[in-house]
């Protein structure tokens, strides 16, 4: 990759470029979803693809998620590599059977004879007052159910490499992208998600967490927007002389428990940040992974900064009250 061009890309552009490059090199790859054609995706991640590949491979669908996600499963099983978009993850309710009973289980039911090499990409996250049917993360809902990989990038470099890896993966991959990281100014965006991204295709291995900041006093684990909150908290803690290590999970299934455990070995303290509902979720799973491995690694009780178990309210101040943020992470550290 020595002479590859590096550009700063938003996650939206990085995803579109990854899909574009895979479509150029593999005629089996195609895209289906609502408003992914002329509009380029509500969140910009298929922009430019219709112009290059036409309506046959960039297919706007009716609002029929059960049918077109089910069709993705069938096409994948028959040798295609569909990238299918569920516009907001909140809409999984109308089509979950196609996802968790078909997409996720047919490899198993067939004794490994049927492969479902499909990517289901879907937007997550709130923070812009879109209320409780358009702001959820639902990470754990998907990660709980066996048979599908579940990933969520925090920056454009990872987004491109993980999307290429997801398309090439023979297992179904749920690719969850956080709206607040997309680089779409119209719903506010975290600037730090827009990073240098090579033009040449490359893969980021699914199932590997990444230490995005090294430290020795406390491990803060998060994914997607949670990573940015964790990094901001780490900056604040640094002002107090506290050296926080930040782990970007990047993938929930497979979950890189080892990276988390070895970080906690070093720091002895663990905070998990999760924008999904707190109970029965990512934070509980990560903490359990450490405690089950060796509870004596922890010098104090673990903490979680997660979304409370309430639907997401519309009013800005109420939503912000519920959302994880850097100050809550710092406070969690102080409470340790």
């Amino acid at each position, binding site marked *: 990759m020595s002479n590859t061009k590096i550009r700063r890309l938003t996650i939206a552009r990085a995803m579109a470029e990854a899909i574009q490059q895979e479509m150029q090199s593999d005629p089996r790859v195609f895209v289906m979803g609502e408003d992914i054609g002329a509009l380029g995706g509500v969140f910009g991640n298929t922009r430019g693809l219709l112009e290059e590949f036409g309506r046959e491979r960039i297919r706007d669908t009716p609002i029929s998620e059960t049918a077109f996600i089910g069709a993705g499963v069938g096409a994948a099983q028959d040798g295609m590599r569909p990238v299918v978009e569920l516009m907001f993850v909140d809409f999984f309710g109308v089509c979950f059977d196609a996802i968790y009973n078909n997409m996720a289980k047919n490899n198993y039911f067939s004794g490994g004879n049927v492969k479902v090499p499909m990517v289901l990409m879907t937007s997550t996250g709130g923070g812009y007052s879109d209320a409780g049917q358009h702001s959820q993360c639902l990470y754990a809902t998907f990660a709980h159910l066996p048979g599908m990989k579940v990933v969520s990038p925090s920056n454009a470099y990872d987004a491109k490499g993980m999307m290429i890896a997801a398309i090439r993966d023979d297992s179904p991959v749920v690719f969850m992208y956080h709206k607040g990281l997309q680089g779409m100014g119209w719903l506010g965006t975290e600037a730090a998600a827009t990073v240098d991204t090579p033009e040449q295709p490359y893969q980021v291995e699914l199932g590997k967490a990444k230490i995005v900041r090294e430290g020795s006093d406390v491990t803060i684990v998060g994914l997607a927007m949670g990573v940015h909150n964790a990094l901001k908290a780490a900056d604040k803690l640094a002002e107090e002389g506290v050296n926080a290590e930040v782990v970007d999970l990047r993938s929930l299934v497979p979950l890189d428990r080892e990276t988390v455990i070895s970080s906690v070995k070093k720091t002895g303290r663990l905070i998990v940040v999760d924008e999904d509902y707190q109970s029965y979720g990512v934070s509980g799973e990560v903490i359990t992974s450490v405690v089950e491995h060796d509870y004596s690694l922890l010098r104090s009780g673990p903490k979680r900064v997660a979304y409370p178990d309430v639907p997401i309210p519309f009013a800005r*101040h109420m939503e912000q009250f519920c959302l994880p943020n850097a100050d809550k992470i710092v406070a969690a550290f102080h409470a340790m």
Partner: protein
Amino acid sequence: MLISRETKLWMYKTMLLSRRFEETIEQIYLEGKTPAFNMANGPIPGEMHLSNGQEPVAVGVCAHLNAEDIVTATHRPHHQAIAKGVDLKRMTAEIFGKQTGLSGGRGGHMHIFDTNVNFGCSGIIAQGMGPACGAALSRKMQNKPGVAVSFIGEGAVNQGAFHESLNLAALWCLPVVFVVEDNAWGISVSKQDSTAVARNDVRAAAYDMPGHFVENNDPLVIYKVAGDAIDRARSGGGPSLIEIETFRLAGHFMGDAEAYRPDGEKAFLESKDPIPAFRKILLAEGTTDVALDHLKDQVEEQVSAAIAFARESAYAPAEDALTQVFAQGEYHE
């Protein structure tokens, strides 16, 4: 079906109220969102789906409904809410996220619930349809009066819930009317790109119920067709499906650049704006300019009062986010 002068004036005034309300909301929505448009900012954050152009559907149908009748609406609910008689002040306060809002700021513009007039919505496509069937069933089981009307967009007819609900309603002969607002677009996807069926009223045949199609956004024809269907439901005749050709004068939501619209479509639709067209009809029938302007003044007052109420109301304490999750007002950690 005859239509009284009084009803016509109510329809005109209600269309105007909905339009003036949305024009005002549109302005306020943009506060704090310029020069850079960021949905998260301003006194009204989040998505904003306007219904201007679609008022004839709301008034033509709701003219036949009483407070006891049930309406389920969508992500684009203002015109229907206003026509159903939802408390305008409290709805406006809800859109601003205030404590005096219908839900204390929890729901916002896509989740308007007013129990006094049996109005509710869902931001998930076609998900008002099952609840409308259930409300109709409840009235039937309790032997109580009332019909349910479920409004959906033409994009929603391609959801499973549409077909399941029509089948259930027909099977159980429920007092429910399904009204499809065909504004030709589901966000950026046109009707002809979303179904091979040109007119969705024909789908009624699949469930052995009457289907009707109304062309050209005509409030008087809508009134008549909806009236027949609602009468039928009220008198135990069972459900009907009505598709109404209407116009989405604005973008899908505010901030939509609408590059997908064919050239000239917007100007063409604006030339067919149903409000001036209805005014012309009323004038031709002998209503005076003075009388119509008087209605306009009343509408302006109503809108100003609602906006003032919303602006002046306080926000609920942020911790209120942790209340009303369960029936006793509590939440469980």
